[in-house]
C-alpha cells in the first residue's frame, strides 16, 4: 500500500518536474505567456486594491452618517454644552462632540489655506456646532429624521444638516467599482482560461507523436494529461506571482505621491498593499484558472489523439 502511494506520488513529482523543465527550456515563450496571464490577473487585483484603499483612506466617514447641529450665532458655549449633555441621554445617539466656534476657526485656519485672510476678521463668524454620531441601530432614514426633528425643535438651533447624501454617493461609487471589479475579474479570468487553454493546445499538437507512443505502451488518458495539467497550474501560479510583482511595484511607485496628497488633507494615510487574504485569492485563483484551462484543453484535444499503427 505504502509502496503504491509512494510510486503514485513519485509519478506526480515526475510529471511536475517534467512540466517545469519544459517551461524552463523555452524561457521566452513561457515568459510571454506569463506576462499575458499576469496582466489579466493584475487588473482586477489593482481595482481591488484601489477600492480597499479608497475605503480605508476615507476611513470612518464612509460608513458613519453624521448630523451637524449648528447653533445660532448668539448662543453661548456653556448653553451648547448643556444641551449636548441632555441630548446624550437620548437613545439612538452614540456620541456627541461639541465643537466650539474658536476650535472650528482654528481648524479652518490650519487646513483651509485662508489663514492670512481670516486674520483680518474682527470677530469669529462661526457658530458652535454639535457633531452627532447616531448609534449603529439608528441609521435608518426614519430614525435619522426623528433625530433631525429633535435637534431642530430647540430654539437655540439654527440648522440641522444630515451628512448622508455624499456618504451614500461615495458608497454607491465604491459599489460600482466593486461590481466593475467582479465583471473585470470574470472577463479576464475567462481570458486566462483561454490563453492557457490555447497554449496547452499548441503544446499537445507539438507533442502529438509522444502522446501516441505513450498511449501505445499503455499510458492512460490520465497519465498523458497529467503533465499538461501541471503546466497549466504552473502558468497560473507564475502569472499570479508576476501579477503580485506588478501590483507591488505600482504601489511602490504611488506610495510617495499618495502620501503627499494625504498630507494636504492632514492625513498620515499610507497606501496598503495586498493583504495575505487577497494574495491567497490571487494565487489560488491563478492556479485554479490555470488548471481549468489546461483541463478543458487537454481533455478535448487528447481525446482526438488515438494511436494509429
Amino acid at each position, binding site marked *: 500500500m505504502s*509502496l*503504491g502511494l*509512494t*510510486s*503514485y506520488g*513519485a*509519478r506526480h513529482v*515526475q510529471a511536475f518536474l517534467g512540466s517545469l523543465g519544459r517551461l524552463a527550456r523555452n524561457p521566452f515563450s513561457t515568459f510571454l505567456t506569463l506576462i499575458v496571464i499576469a496582466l489579466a490577473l493584475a487588473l482586477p487585483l489593482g481595482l481591488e486594491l484601489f477600492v480597499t484603499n479608497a475605503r480605508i483612506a476615507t476611513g470612518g466617514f464612509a460608513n458613519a452618517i453624521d448630523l451637524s447641529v449648528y447653533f445660532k450665532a448668539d448662543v453661548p458655549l456653556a448653553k451648547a454644552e448643556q444641551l449636548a449633555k441632555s441630548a446624550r441621554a437620548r437613545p439612538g445617539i452614540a456620541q456627541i462632540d461639541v465643537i466650539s466656534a474658536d476650535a472650528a476657526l482654528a481648524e479652518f485656519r490650519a487646513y483651509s489655506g485662508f489663514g492670512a485672510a481670516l486674520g483680518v476678521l474682527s470677530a469669529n463668524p462661526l457658530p458652535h456646532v454639535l457633531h452627532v454620531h447616531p448609534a449603529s441601530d439608528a441609521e435608518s432614514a426614519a430614525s435619522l429624521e426623528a433625530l433631525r426633528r429633535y435637534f431642530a425643535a430647540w430654539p437655540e438651533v439654527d440648522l440641522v444638516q444630515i451628512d448622508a447624501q455624499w456618504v451614500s454617493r461615495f458608497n454607491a461609487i465604491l459599489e460600482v467599482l466593486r461590481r466593475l471589479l467582479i465583471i473585470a475579474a470574470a472577463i479576464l479570468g475567462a481570458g486566462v482560461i483561454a490563453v492557457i487553454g490555447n497554449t496547452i493546445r499548441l503544446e499537445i499538437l507539438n507533442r502529438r*507523436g*509522444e502522446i*501516441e*507512443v*505513450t*498511449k*501505445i*505502451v*499503455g*499510458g*492512460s*488518458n490520465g*497519465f498523458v494529461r497529467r503533465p499538461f495539467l501541471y503546466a497549466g497550474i504552473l502558468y497560473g501560479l507564475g502569472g499570479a506571482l508576476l501579477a503580485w510583482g506588478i501590483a507591488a511595484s505600482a504601489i511602490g511607485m504611488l506610495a510617495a505621491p499618495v502620501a503627499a496628497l494625504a498630507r494636504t488633507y492632514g492625513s498620515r494615510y499610507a497606501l496598503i498593499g495586498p493583504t495575505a487574504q487577497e494574495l491567497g485569492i490571487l494565487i489560488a485563483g491563478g492556479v485554479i484558472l490555470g488548471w481549468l484551462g489546461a483541463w478543458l484543453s487537454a481533455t478535448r484535444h487528447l481525446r482526438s489523439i*488515438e*494511436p*494509429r*499503427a
Partner: protein
Amino acid sequence: MIVFDRVSKRYPNGREGLSNASLRIEEGEMVFLTGRSGAGKSTVLKLISLLERPTRGTVVVGGKNTGSLASRHIPAFRRRIGIVFQDHKLLTERPVFDNVALPLVVAGTPLKEIDKRVRAALDQVGLLGKERALPLELSVGEQQRVGIARAVVSKPPLLIADEPTGNLDPDLAVEVMRLFKRFQEVGVTIVVATHDVHLVRELGLREIVLDHGHVQGTENDPLAGMVATR
C-alpha cells in the same frame, strides 16, 4: 493466447482489412503472419493490440474479448503487449534510456526498478552503454533494437512486431529474428508480420498466410490450418 473467430474488419473508408478470418495462436508460440502488403497482416496486429476493434466476429487476447473491453481498461490491456514497429516510433528528442523506460513509467514502476530493468533490456538487445544517446545518433539497426528493448522491458507475455526487419539489411534482419527467438525461448508469445518469406522459411516456424483479408492456410501446422479453413 490469441483466438480470432470469424473476424471481419471494415475501415471507415470502406476498405475490408480482414474477411471472416479465424486463427489461433497458442501461448509461448512464435508465429509469422505473411502475405503481400494490404493482405491484412497489419489489421490482425491492430486488432490484437486494440488499436482497432473488429467489425464482426470476436477477438480474444489473453482471455479477454477485445470487442467488449471498456475504453478505460485499454491502457492496462496494452501494458501486457509489447509492440515493435517498422518505423520504430521512438521519441527522437529523448535519450535511449527514456524511450525504453516509457512503458515502465506509464505503469508506475518505482524509479530504482526502472533503472535496473531498462539496463537489463538494453543488455538483451546489445545496446548497454547507449542509454544517453539520442535515437537519431544510432544506426537504423540499433534504433530497431531500442524499439525492441522498449517492447520487452516490462516483460509482457505477448510481443507483436509489424515488419520489424523491413528497413534492415539481411544480416541485421536475421539478427533481429534471432533476438525474437530468444524471447520466445523464455516463454513470450510472439507474432511477427513480415513479407520476407525467405527469412521465415529459414527459421522453420509456423506461418499464417493472409491474402486479401482472408486466411489462406498455414505452413508447418496442420491444426491451425484446420481452424483457419473451418
